[in-house]
């Protein structure tokens, strides 16, 4: 994101514009729509009110006009000469025609006035007329004293009674031609149109578009008009219609819409400009920040500083960033130093472990050979010495392993693989290992049946096993001769499994309870002969804690101790194992001679002492012959040539390493299935992991334990048979 890039090209700008502009325009449109529709409703209401008012005005004026004509007719009907002429039948012919000829009504010069007797017979008239009114429908009404106002295509007719002594004796008819009627009925008022209808038929209209004379007043008003209709109160049948063209009525709305469009356009443009300028002020510091962050990420350019400018928040951010990078710079150098120190320690431990193991390998190996040599029987003293050598070596080895372990745990350079684990199964494995030791001490280990069916716990299987082994071995080691160890279990609080190992040893004095889990503390009491590194329980406690468990104990001096661990239960259920009680008497013979008959084992090893040790060991396994190579290159050739049943491979070889050699072997499909195990003094977990990754089925750490080799053989050769026989 270069700083020279135009702001509207930036993704942020685009996204803000895309979010804000359409939304703002939509809101504007909505507001506009609501506003115009509201205005339209208001205008329509207002227009209707105006029309209603107008119709009232027109009605009043119209009624006034009609009243005027009716009043004029009544005034004329009340004229004495006219009344008298009804009676003066002899001489009225001399003056009535003259009177009528001269008659001009003030309202309308064009009107025709007709004077009839009580039966509608014409007595006098201003203009010629066909027939008389004897059968006129209005006659009856007029003769009972009513006045009649009629409208039609011909025009308007007003008939009033002529009274004498309050009795109707004649009628006066005033006919207004349609043109005069139209002038009276229709008034041009502003932008409105009006029309008058009689019995639903339009008589007159100020605008032919509005209503057509002669048409129906209900359908006449077209959709383009706002219409208001009103029945006239004083003149039945007469209906007034007032209309306004919608275009005219809503002109204000149209203007408003136009104005809204302009406002909308201006708003949208100013919005875009505003957003862009704001974004510009935001994105340039943001771009600088981004560039700096990317610089830190990709090039670890911690020295880069951001120019402090822009809005306050950005200034704070920039200075915070600068502060952060300088701190990071400092902490990074500290970390590097610490890492280097740690690395040095690891390397030291690794090499120490390797350097110590190599001589130990010889000590323990040959000690074992010496002890087990059946051909050259040792004297009792010699045997005792060899045994002491072995015990010392073994103790040293344990110490090295546990120190390594502890350092690993303390450095945190240690990973757990938590999984559901069956405590019964793990306990079984532990008993297999502890069994011989217990047997040699004459100690009975009793496992309560509940342990075998205990529910699964969530733990690292290896570490859990290590914990149990430690507790069991302690229980055996610190027991009295022919004592007992009891393993029991129960479900504890909070989804924990409580596992207790009870011994019948001397117990732990109360004043040292607090030191039990501290490193290098041993409470052997008078049992000074018990071997121990002094850090077993320390490691155990740490392991239990990293597995989210707890550990503790209670002890009675002279009676024994009970160590317990609590491990979280897994959600998975455990299958019920067969109830079993393991005792040292039930130890199995692990190797069968027929399993190993005619087998060839290749050992690639540069260290003659180690080679010698394995040679001696293999000699003791009937039917197995050992071939060897002192470097990897020869080893590979020998594998191709002899196709051994098992390859034992040292890792640290001159030239090609053991791992490289195995890789080479595995390239040949014919040799790919040959089982291979690593034997190395590199005991660091990293090394073991590397080896296992390379394809070794097992990784034996020097000093070589004969039991381990035997177990390896048993596993390889048995499984090989199983595979062949199946």
């Amino acid at each position, binding site marked *: 994101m270069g700083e020279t890039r135009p702001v509207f090209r930036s993704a942020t700008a685009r996204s803000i514009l895309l979010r804000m502009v359409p939304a703002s325009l939509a809101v504007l449109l909505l507001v506009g729509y609501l506003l115009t529709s509201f205005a339209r409703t208001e205008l329509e209401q207002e227009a209707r009110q105006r029309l209603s008012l107008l119709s009232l005005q027109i009605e009043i004026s119209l009624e006034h006009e009609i009243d005027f004509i009716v009043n004029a007719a009544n005034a004329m009907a*009340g004229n*004495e*000469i006219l*009344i*008298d002429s*009804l*009676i*003066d*039948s*002899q*001489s009225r012919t001399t003056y009535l025609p003259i009177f009528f000829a001269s008659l001009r009504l003030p309202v309308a010069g064009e009107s025709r006035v007709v004077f009839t*007797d*009580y*039966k509608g*017979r014409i007595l006098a008239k201003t203009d010629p007329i066909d027939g008389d009114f004897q059968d006129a429908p209005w006659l009856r009404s007029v003769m009972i004293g009513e006045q009649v106002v009629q409208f039609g295509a011909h025009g308007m007719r007003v008939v009033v009674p002529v*009274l*004498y*002594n309050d*009795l109707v*004796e*004649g009628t006066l008819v005033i006919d207004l031609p349609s043109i005069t009627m139209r002038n009276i009925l229709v008034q041009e008022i502003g932008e409105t149109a009006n029309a008058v209808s009689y019995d639903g038929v339009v008589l007159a209209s100020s605008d032919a578009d509005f209503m057509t004379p002669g048409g129906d007043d209900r359908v006449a008003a077209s959709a383009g008009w706002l219409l208001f209709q009103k029945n006239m109160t004083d003149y039945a049948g007469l209906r007034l219609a007032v209309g306004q063209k919608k275009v005219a009525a809503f002109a204000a709305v149209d203007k408003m819409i136009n104005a809204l469009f302009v406002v909308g356009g201006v708003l949208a443009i100013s919005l875009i400009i505003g957003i862009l300028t704001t974004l510009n002020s935001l994105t340039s510091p943001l771009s600088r920040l981004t560039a700096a962050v990317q610089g830190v990420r990709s090039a670890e350019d911690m020295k880069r500083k951001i120019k402090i400018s822009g809005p306050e928040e950005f200034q704070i951010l920039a200075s915070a960033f600068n502060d952060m990078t300088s701190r990071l710079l400092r902490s990074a150098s500290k970390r590097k130093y610490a890492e280097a120190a740690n690395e040095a320690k690891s390397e030291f431990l690794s090499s120490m472990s390797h350097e110590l193991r190599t001589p130990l390998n010889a000590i323990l190996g040959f000690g074992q050979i010496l002890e087990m040599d059946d051909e050259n029987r040792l004297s009792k003293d010699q045997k005792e010495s060899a045994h002491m050598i072995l015990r010392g070596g073994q103790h040293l080895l344990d110490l090295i392993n546990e120190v390594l372990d502890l350092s690993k745990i303390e450095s945190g350079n240690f990973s757990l693989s938590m999984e559901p684990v069956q405590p019964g199964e793990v306990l079984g494995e532990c008993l297999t290992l502890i069994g011989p030791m217990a047997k040699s001490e004459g100690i009975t280990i009793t496992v309560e049946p509940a342990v075998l069916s205990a529910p699964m716990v969530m733990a690292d299987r290896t570490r859990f096993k290590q914990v149990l082994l430690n507790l069991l071995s302690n229980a055996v080691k610190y027991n009295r001769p022919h004592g007992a160890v009891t393993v029991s279990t129960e479900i504890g609080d909070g989804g924990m499994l409580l596992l207790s190992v009870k011994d019948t040893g001397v117990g732990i004095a109360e004043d040292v309870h607090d030191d039990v889990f501290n490193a290098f503390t041993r409470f052997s009491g008078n049992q000074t002969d018990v071997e121990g590194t002094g850090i077993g329980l320390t490691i155990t406690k740490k392991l239990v804690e990293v597995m989210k468990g707890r550990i503790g104990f209670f002890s009675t001096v002279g009676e024994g101790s009970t160590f317990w661990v609590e491990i979280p239960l897994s959600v998975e259920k455990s299958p019920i194992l067969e109830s079993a009680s393991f005792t040292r008497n039930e130890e199995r013979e692990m190797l069968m001679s027929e399993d190993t008959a005619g087998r060839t084992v290749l050992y690639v090893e540069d260290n003659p002492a180690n080679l010698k040790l394995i040679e001696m060991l293999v000699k003791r396994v009937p039917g197995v012959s050992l071939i060897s190579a002192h470097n990897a290159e020869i080893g590979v050739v020998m594998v191709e040539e002899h196709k051994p049943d098992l390859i034992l491979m040292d890792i640290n070889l001159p030239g090609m390493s053991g791992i490289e050699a195995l890789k080479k072997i595995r390239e040949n499909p014919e040799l790919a299935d040959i089982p291979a195990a690593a034997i190395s003094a590199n005991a660091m977990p990293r090394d073991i992991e590397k080896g296992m990754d390379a394809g070794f089925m097992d990784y034996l750490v020097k000093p070589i334990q004969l039991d381990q080799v035997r177990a390896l053989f048993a596993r390889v050769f048995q499984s090989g048979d199983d595979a062949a026989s199946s």
Partner: protein
Amino acid sequence: MSKTAPLSLLVGLALMVGFFLLSPNEARADNHPILIGLDADMSSGSALSGEAIRRGTAVAIAEINESGGLLGRPLMLTVRDHRGNPSRGKDNIIELAEMKNLLAVMGGIHTPVAMAELDLLHDNKIIYLSPWAAGTPVVDNGKNPNYVFRVSVRDQFAGRFLVKGAAARGYKKLGLLFERTGWGRSNEKAFAKAADELGIKLTGVQWLNWGAKDLTAQIKMLKADGAEAVMLVANPREGVIAVKNMASLPADQRLPIISHWGITGGRFAEGVGEDLQKVNLSVLQTMSFMNPPRPDKAASFLARYYKMYKDTSKPEDIRAGVGAAHAYDLMHLLGLAVKQAGSLDRARVRDALEAVKHYKGLVRVYNPPFSPSRHDALSEADFSLARYGANGILVPASR
């Protein structure tokens, strides 16, 4: 008063039904009642005169029917109201003319209506008996044979009588206030002639219209022309206005009014009310039941009258009595003529009316009533002047 009209119709109908029941079958056609039409104002401004005429006619018919009717047939009155309107009157005549058994039509107070009906009457040969309308041309109508017979004032005589009366009261200059109709014009001629003959000055004539609402202007004009008395020819409605307008003038400016009798045909006294005493008003009359010319005849008439009309019991109760008296005499004269003619043929009865020799009537003794050249039975000698008493009753004026 018009309320009693349906009652009289019922009486007539009852009589008719009675005759049907009494007569043998073969004589039934001959025994149809003889119809006497009454064509007068029964409901408008002069309704009182119409009712008076109806009552007088009815009393006479009752007497005739009681004595066996005419030529063995009963008389029956059929009433038509013209309200003083000639158009209605003409229509009434047309209607009556179509009636098979019509013998004669009794007219009303209105000269203009009678005038308008003349052609129809003569075209249909209908005997027209006039008990009130005084217009000279009603009788002097130029028709030959003349079917109009009158027992009433003749304007020609009335003019002379009233001018004389004015002169006798010392009025030398007379202003005329006449209704603008044929009647008014009939009087204009009569007054002009009489004044000329009697050496009385007529200061001028002011015409008043039917339906007039104020006559002050006319009265003032008459005064301005120097009239000492106002001669009034009008009907009750306009008469009331004239008298009230006169009364409204300051007392020293009021003129005496000598009126033709048209004003007595309606509820004049009620209309004028208290103003009546403010104006010196004399009015033409023929006879009065207060002072009847033939008391015995009047007594027998009144006895029957009171019997037939329960709202009356003394002479003062008989309103517009002249109409009743004239109609009564006319009806009996017609009866005599039928008897003399021995026929119901109207032409022959008309001829017989001219030939009736003698009749002792209510108004006077007719000896003879009519002649071929004279169809007016009364003369100036039968006239008198009367005044309205405090109770609105006309009383004969002391000379």
